[in-house]
């Protein structure tokens, strides 16, 4: 480790880093703009100037750009030398000459890196009296606001957007001091990581448009560590909320990235960043609702839909408790349906209430089996699940049937970095440090091998060395052949064509040659055989290489892998529930408690109708008015991720706790609290109920889970309980400069009310308590004196770009470790064409905006979610008497759908790609991969009403 001297102090630093990041790691304040810990140095802004002295005799030294300087053992440097300070001051003065003096009306103000650096460099008085150059702004879509006048030309935006995230529609246009960062034409930024521009831009050129609609300054946001609920990657977020003050409800205002070294690092995807608005959506349930019985004269609702009215929450809880009492007396059967988007605690409370026999996952059989298979694969000690930095360093990646850009976007960004690994290797061979970004990118290294086989591979085709678009059956075949090739098994499959075998051999060669190969797959192709084949491939590869194979499996929803821990093998699917209901005693009435789940997205519509007709009462605890809510007799309002505490398990098996950011609106509370409240009213005595009654804090449930379920025993350790104190204090959710405390509610009552108490976490809903994120990771407000922007995260890392101080948050759940038998493909679930004329196989395709249930309800998403469509091979479209862009009717066994037909070369013949969960086609999703037929849409003649 080199030793360097900075301003007379000796330090030991990491020799692989440049001088700037070494200084920052040491906690020294060196101003910078263009350097970014994840994107390296380009030396464009000249702001990080320091003095380097030749030796201890040297008095004057020379100016160097610290971001472009490798640390030299024994080097003598100065940050605070007068020449360096003067130089930095003059640079910032030059950068500021054209700055438009609009901080008060800039969304970045108060968390602006430019403000911080100007302050730090001591430029307080403007001397420039000339004219300022101005630019016109562009419309960049519903997420990002553009204000080009504020630009200081650091090039961070294009370096992130083009070089790091692989976008191609944001360019540096113009020349000299007129450089313009924008699109060639106005329009939405197409890349799914565009939201990071808001955080990457050191000033306010790119700001969050959704945040601006209900804007408050950073210091006025109340925050807590949270987990993004829009996919299963488990990115850490810091949602910001604030009361409204004008008689409306408190609101979730925005989502920002919360650094987690092993998952999201510095970046989030746009679904995660902008999908939060569903929390404030008008379809949000915030009251207890009960179906009304009175006859209506006229209504636009479907005949089966229930019409609800608000009731006193107490009445709802009493009703629920009556049902529970009846169940205890064996006069009623209560069935619980859990959900992969509900926290472990909520699922567990329901399981505890109804008993394991009456608890079902809310997934169809296929999904349930897929998840259980994933769980089994994880328990194999020949397979490990790689985290993001491990994915970024893989030197060969095989992606099987998973369109990661749309299903696990943050992983796609990691894969994009892995594509540069040969280039990086070459740079290392040439002794070019990796932080020398431009130099490394100019090397003509081959791209690292990335092989994709599957249906659709959005946004990553430019980095893939081989892409094979095949049907799931052929994907399975490919994987099996690859397994045979690697295991050198003599059993040759006869079904494989020579070209296909060539690809297999090529891939096998790459995987065997690689020192750090990685396989990515998941459940989203909805094909058990494929997943089985992938597992076998990973096992064979591990046998061959004698080290566990890195296999990343995407599980679809935020808590899929966690929820599946609550079920026994091959149990818990909705089909099983139907079977159990159809044979059960009809004398005893049945109640169904549905927990945060929309059954119409899980089962085809006729089956859901049948299921609902088999029960006497439907009780729903959920956040949004879903189709299931329309059929429920009672609805209880549940809190969303940002309003509650709980635990999610991500794709890696990392159990992470999220904390309530704010109290929410109406009568919402965590689902488990509704159940416990009902049990509290219950008159029957039972051991089980006294356990439920004893739960007062969210951590009580976590501890109970840890005791009861072996694989989840880490839950007892992943976060402190509500008694935890630091120096006798709780953690503050509000910043020390939270404003308006004595005015925000003054129009209702001039005397202040005490802040509400959090029963679950050692955190205050006020500014009292610990503010320093170095003291606890429960503090999500990343701020340090002089560093108001999110750049201040380096003050809370062990080294720049490293782990947070205090270690990583979250703990890996313990899959029961055993070396399972190589599973053979034998499942009854593979779908065959039925006797009807439906002959087109539906393949699931995914969209970043549109495939996830909750984010679809965000206001800003309405502009970016596509209208219902299906994809078909262009050659085949004409066979159906239609053409691209026309509407077609999709006929399935369970109903007809209308969608636009689009051509896509990636869809195999005889198949159609159906967007999973897209609004308008949600209820088609459970039927995938079933069969359908097409015919041109005939618009029904509109009968003129007199």
């Amino acid at each position: 480790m080199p030793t360097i001297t900075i301003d007379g102090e000796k330090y030991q630093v990491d020799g692989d880093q440049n001088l700037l990041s070494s200084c920052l790691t040491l906690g020294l304040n060196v101003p910078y703009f263009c350097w970014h810990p994840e994107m390296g140095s380009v030396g464009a802004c000249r702001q990080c100037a320091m003095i380097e002295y030749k030796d201890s005799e040297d008095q004057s030294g020379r100016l160097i750009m610290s971001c472009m300087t490798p640390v030299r053992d024994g080097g003598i440097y100065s940050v605070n030398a007068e020449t360096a300070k003067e130089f930095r001051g003059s640079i910032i003065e030059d950068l500021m000459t054209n700055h438009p003096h609009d901080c008060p009306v800039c969304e970045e103000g108060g968390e602006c890196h430019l403000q911080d650096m100007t302050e730090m460099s001591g430029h307080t008085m403007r001397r420039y009296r000339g004219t300022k150059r101005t630019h016109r702004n562009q419309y960049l879509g519903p997420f990002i606001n553009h204000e080009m006048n504020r630009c200081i030309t650091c090039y961070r935006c294009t370096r992130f957007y083009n070089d790091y995230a692989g976008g191609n529609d944001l360019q540096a246009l113009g020349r000299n001091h007129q450089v313009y960062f924008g699109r060639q034409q106005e329009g939405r930024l197409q890349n799914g990581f565009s939201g990071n521009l808001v955080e990457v831009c050191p000033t306010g050129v790119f700001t969050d448009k959704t945040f601006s609609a209900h804007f408050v300054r950073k210091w006025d946001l109340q925050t807590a560590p949270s987990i993004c609920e829009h996919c299963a990657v488990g990115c850490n977020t810091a949602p910001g909320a604030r009361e409204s003050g004008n008689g409306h409800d408190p609101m979730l205002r925005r989502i920002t990235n919360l650094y987690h070294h092993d998952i999201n690092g510095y970046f989030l995807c746009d679904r995660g960043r902008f999908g939060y608005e569903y929390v404030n959506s008008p379809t949000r349930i915030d009251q207890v609702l009960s179906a009304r019985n009175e006859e209506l004269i006229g209504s636009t609702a479907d005949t089966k839909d229930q019409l609800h009215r608000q009731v006193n929450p107490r009445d709802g809880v009493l009703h629920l408790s009556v049902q529970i009492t009846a169940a205890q007396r064996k006069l009623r059967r209560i069935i619980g349906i859990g959900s992969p988007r509900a926290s472990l605690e909520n699922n567990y409370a329901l399981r505890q209430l109804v008993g394991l026999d009456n608890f079902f996952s809310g997934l169809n059989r296929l999904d349930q089996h897929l998840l259980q298979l994933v769980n089994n694969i994880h328990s194999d000690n020949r397979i490990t699940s790689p985290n993001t930095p491990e994915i970024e360093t893989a030197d060969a990646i095989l992606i099987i049937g998973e369109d990661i850009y749309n299903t696990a976007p943050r992983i796609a960004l990691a894969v994009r970095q892995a594509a540069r690994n040969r280039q990086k290797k070459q740079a290392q061979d040439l002794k070019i440090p990796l932080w020398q970004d431009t130099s490394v990118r100019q090397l003509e290294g081959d791209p690292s091998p990335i092989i994709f086989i599957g249906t659709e591979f959005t946004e990553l085709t430019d980095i893939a060395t081989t892409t094979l678009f095949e049907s799931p059956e052929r994907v399975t075949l490919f994987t099996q052949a690859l397994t045979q090739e690697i295991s050198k098994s003599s059993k040759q499959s006869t079904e494989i064509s020579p070209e296909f075998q060539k690809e297999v051999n090529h891939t096998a060669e790459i995987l065997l040659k690689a020192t750090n190969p990685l396989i990515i797959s998941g459940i989203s192709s909805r094909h058990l055989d494929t997943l089985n084949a992938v597992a076998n491939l990973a096992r064979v590869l591990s046998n061959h290489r004698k080290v566990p194979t890195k296999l990343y499996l995407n599980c679809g929803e935020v808590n899929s892998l966690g929820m599946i821990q609550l079920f026994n093998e091959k149990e818990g699917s909705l089909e099983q529930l139907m079977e159990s209901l159809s044979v059960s005693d009809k004398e005893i009435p049945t109640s169904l408690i549905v927990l945060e789940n929309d059954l119409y997205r899980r089962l085809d519509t006729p089956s859901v109708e049948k299921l609902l007709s088999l029960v006497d009462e439907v009780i729903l605890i959920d956040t949004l008015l879903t189709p299931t809510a329309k059929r429920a007799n009672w609805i209880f309002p549940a809190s969303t991720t940002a309003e509650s505490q709980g635990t999610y398990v991500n794709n890696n098996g990392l159990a992470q706790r999220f904390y309530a950011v704010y109290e929410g609106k109406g009568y919402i509370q965590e689902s488990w609290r509704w159940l416990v409240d009902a049990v509290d009213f219950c008159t029957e005595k039972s051991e089980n109920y006294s356990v439920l009654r004893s739960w007062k804090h969210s951590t009580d449930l976590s501890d109970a889970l840890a005791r009861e379920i072996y694989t989840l025993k880490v839950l007892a350790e992943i976060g402190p309980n509500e008694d935890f104190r630091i120096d006798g204090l709780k953690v503050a959710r509000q910043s020390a400069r939270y404003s308006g405390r004595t005015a925000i509610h003054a129009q209702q009552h001039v005397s202040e009310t005490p802040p509400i108490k959090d029963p679950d976490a050692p955190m205050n809903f006020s500014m009292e308590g610990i503010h320093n994120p170095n003291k606890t990771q429960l503090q999500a407000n990343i701020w340090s004196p002089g560093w108001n922007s999110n750049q201040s995260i380096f003050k809370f890392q062990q080294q720049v770009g490293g782990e947070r101080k205090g270690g990583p948050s979250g703990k890996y759940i313990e899959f029961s470790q055993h070396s399972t038998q190589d599973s053979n493909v034998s499942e009854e679930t593979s779908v065959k064409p039925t006797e009807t004329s439906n002959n087109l196989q539906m393949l699931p395709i995914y969209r970043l905006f549109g495939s996830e249930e909750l984010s679809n309800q965000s206001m800003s998403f309405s502009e970016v979610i596509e209208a219902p469509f299906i994809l078909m091979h262009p050659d085949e479209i004409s066979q159906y008497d239609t053409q691209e862009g026309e509407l077609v009717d999709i006929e399935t066994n369970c109903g007809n759908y209308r969608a636009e037909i689009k051509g896509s070369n990636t869809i195999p013949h005889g198949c159609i790609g159906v967007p999973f969960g897209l609004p308008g086609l949600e209820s088609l999703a459970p039927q995938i991969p079933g069969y359908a037929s097409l015919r041109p849409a005939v618009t029904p003649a509109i009968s003129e009403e007199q």
Partner: protein
Amino acid sequence: MIASQIRSMWLVFKHLFRRNVTVQYPEEKPYLAPRYRGRIILSRDPNGDERCVACNLCAVACPPDCISLQKTEDPDGRWRPEYFRINFSRCIMCGLCEDACPTYAIQLTPDFEMCEYDRQNMVYEKEDLLIDGPGKYHDYSFYQVAGKAIKGKDKGQANNEAEPINVKSLNL
């Protein structure tokens, strides 16, 4: 001892010929300088538009946290407070809000007569705070010096601004 008593009597007697210190308030009002820190108002710019751009700096500068507001954006591009509230029962008339205000919108006035029987009446909303004139600063208009375009003032039309650059030209 007797001398002391006589001295006291003399001093008291002398005051018979001094000018009265007591002012007959409220019939008689004392002079307060224009810079006196009294009741807070929100002013308008010379065109009669609200000066406040809802930047929140007054709220964050306020030691007793008695200012609260919410930003909203008008169709003409101006930022404006959707509501603006000062809880005068908490206000300490320190004037830090005025110091913090980048647009001269919030100003303290030489009026201190703010008595109420009900504390709730000390909560002033924007309607109560907004006056019709520019207050102490007659000519300042924030949007004339800021580079953000609003309706009626395009890019390049603020003070000291060059014409917007056409990126598609050569720009020599």
